[in-house]
């Protein structure tokens, strides 16, 4: 493993961009501390960056994404999103409805609903009016090339289309941060490349900050930053 271990912790951001994600000395374990996943992670992401998290399975990539999205809480340390500390009791709903979007390895769409209905779920949660939601859906449908498939049921979509639908759903409420957990992990190589290219294109167009966990180093290399996770800590390779 070629890691620049000296470059651990808080990253030196050469740009003056605003920090939108920050983890400070974050610890997380499972099974009452028997399995330690994160061991004092320090990590910052600037607005608009695309960041790839690489590392072996179980190294804590998904856990870190869950902490940023408020789906889980750290045992110790602080996680802040847009300068506000993530607190599941105080601001979880606002975070999930307006600040971050999630894309998972499995598309996690509701099979009995249509593509459009799946995409509109976050707008229902956030109470966004129908016209605004439909306009946004049309816009994202255009961006993802799914306009002609909006009325289709999920079962009739290909794997790539499903993952693009999941991307649409994640971006429906215009979050400024997209957390993607192996977004192309369940796709074949060709679809994987296509979906990832689309992902980068859309986040660039919408000015969204992307943090993506992936095993695919080829895809990771196309992000602004590539971070390695190992043994509960996070490193930025010197070559990155």
């Amino acid at each position, binding site marked *: 493993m070629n890691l620049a271990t000296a470059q651990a912790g808080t990253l030196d951001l050469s740009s003056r961009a605003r920090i939108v994600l920050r983890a400070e000395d974050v610890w997380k374990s499972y099974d009452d501390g028997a399995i330690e996943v994160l061991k004092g992670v320090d990590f910052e992401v600037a607005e608009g960056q695309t960041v790839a998290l690489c590392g072996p399975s179980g190294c804590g990539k998904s856990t870190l994404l869950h902490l940023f999205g408020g789906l889980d809480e750290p045992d110790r340390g602080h996680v802040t999103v847009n300068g506000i500390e993530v607190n599941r009791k105080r601001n979880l709903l606002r975070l999930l409805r307006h600040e971050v979007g*999630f894309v998972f390895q499995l598309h996690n769409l509701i099979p009995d609903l249509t593509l459009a209905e799946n995409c509109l779920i976050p707008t229902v949660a956030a109470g966004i009016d129908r016209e605004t939601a439909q306009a946004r859906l049309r816009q994202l449908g255009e961006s993802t090339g799914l306009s002609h498939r909006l009325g289709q049921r999920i079962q009739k979509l290909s794997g790539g289309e499903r993952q693009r639908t999941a991307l649409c759903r994640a971006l429906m409420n215009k979050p400024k941060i997209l957390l993607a957990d192996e977004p192309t992990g369940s796709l074949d190589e060709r679809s994987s490349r296509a979906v990832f290219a689309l992902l980068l294109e859309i986040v660039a167009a919408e000015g969204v900050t992307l943090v993506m966990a992936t095993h695919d180093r080829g895809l990771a290399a196309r992000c602004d930053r590539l971070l390695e996770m190992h043994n509960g800590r996070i490193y930025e390779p010197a070559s990155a």
Partner: protein
Amino acid sequence: MIFFKLIVTNLRRHRIRSCISMAGIAFSVAAMLTVVTILQGAIGMFSGILSSDSEIVVFERNVSDLFFSSVPAAAAEQIAGWPMVSHADPVLFGIVSSAGHPIVTCFGVTVADARIRKATWTAGDRLDFALHADDVVLGERAAQFLGARLDDHVPIGHGVFHVIGILRTANGFEDGGVFMPLSSAQSFFHKEGASSVITVKLNGKDDAASFKAMVQARFPNLIALEDAEFTRSYSQFRILKATAWAVGVCGLLMGGLGVANTMIMSVFTRIREIAILRVCGFSNVQIATMIFGESAVVSLLGAVFGLLTGTGLLFALKLVPALHGYVDVTLQPVVMLIVIVLALLTGAAGALYPAAYAMRVRAVEALRFE
């Protein structure tokens, strides 16, 4: 719309399970509606006997059943003479048996009684009533089950009576009963000089209060109640009503268990989906609303099917000759409303635990296992 579709989608996904739950609620509602309506009808018929061309009933204070009430004949005579009284009819109730029919309701009435005056005489002449001590008039259904015709002699209880008329009334109790001259009934039931009740028609409705006060003052051991008051307060009616509702509620509880089972399965089989909704920003309230919405749809559809089934059943029962006059299929809106509300409450109760469980689903745990 999407929210409603989320509710319906899940029910459609498990159609058979949802249908079984709806059927549970529907059968419970139908049972409740049938039992309550039949008993309400029976109570209404019994009340109808008392309120036939009268608005006040006078009977012995503190009796548990009107069959045990004993009102002196002298009281009836005095009351009939009071200035606010249009007419006062003493009526003696009795139960007799005949071959193959252990319970035959017997009415001891005077010739002036509204029950005799207003009924449709299908055989015989009203003017012949009470000319002889052993004369009886049979309700049409009583004549059928006793196999009696005009001028027959029929054994009733320990006596044999001469049928001098057959009459038809809309009231099942009266139609299945035997009408005797009051004096004959008093002798037959060993209640000489007494009646069970006096039904009173006043000259004006405004006289009710003064009439009741007068009865209380003159006859401390008697009580006068307006018909509506009597129906509300008569303990037998209250017991019957309570029993009917209790039976119905028990049925609904069973239906509620079905809903609970459906909703529990519904939540357990889509933990991951609920987790995704959470990730999309659904709040606890929205998750719970979705679960309660599903149970409400099941309960409401079940209640509607139950009302239709129950109504159909009541109409079918009305066609059974033996039940003629006993089944009142007039569905009271308040009963229907109560039944629907109870069904919804039952469904909501059945969804309580599933909703609480769904609210506790943590997205991160549900999503960890793929």
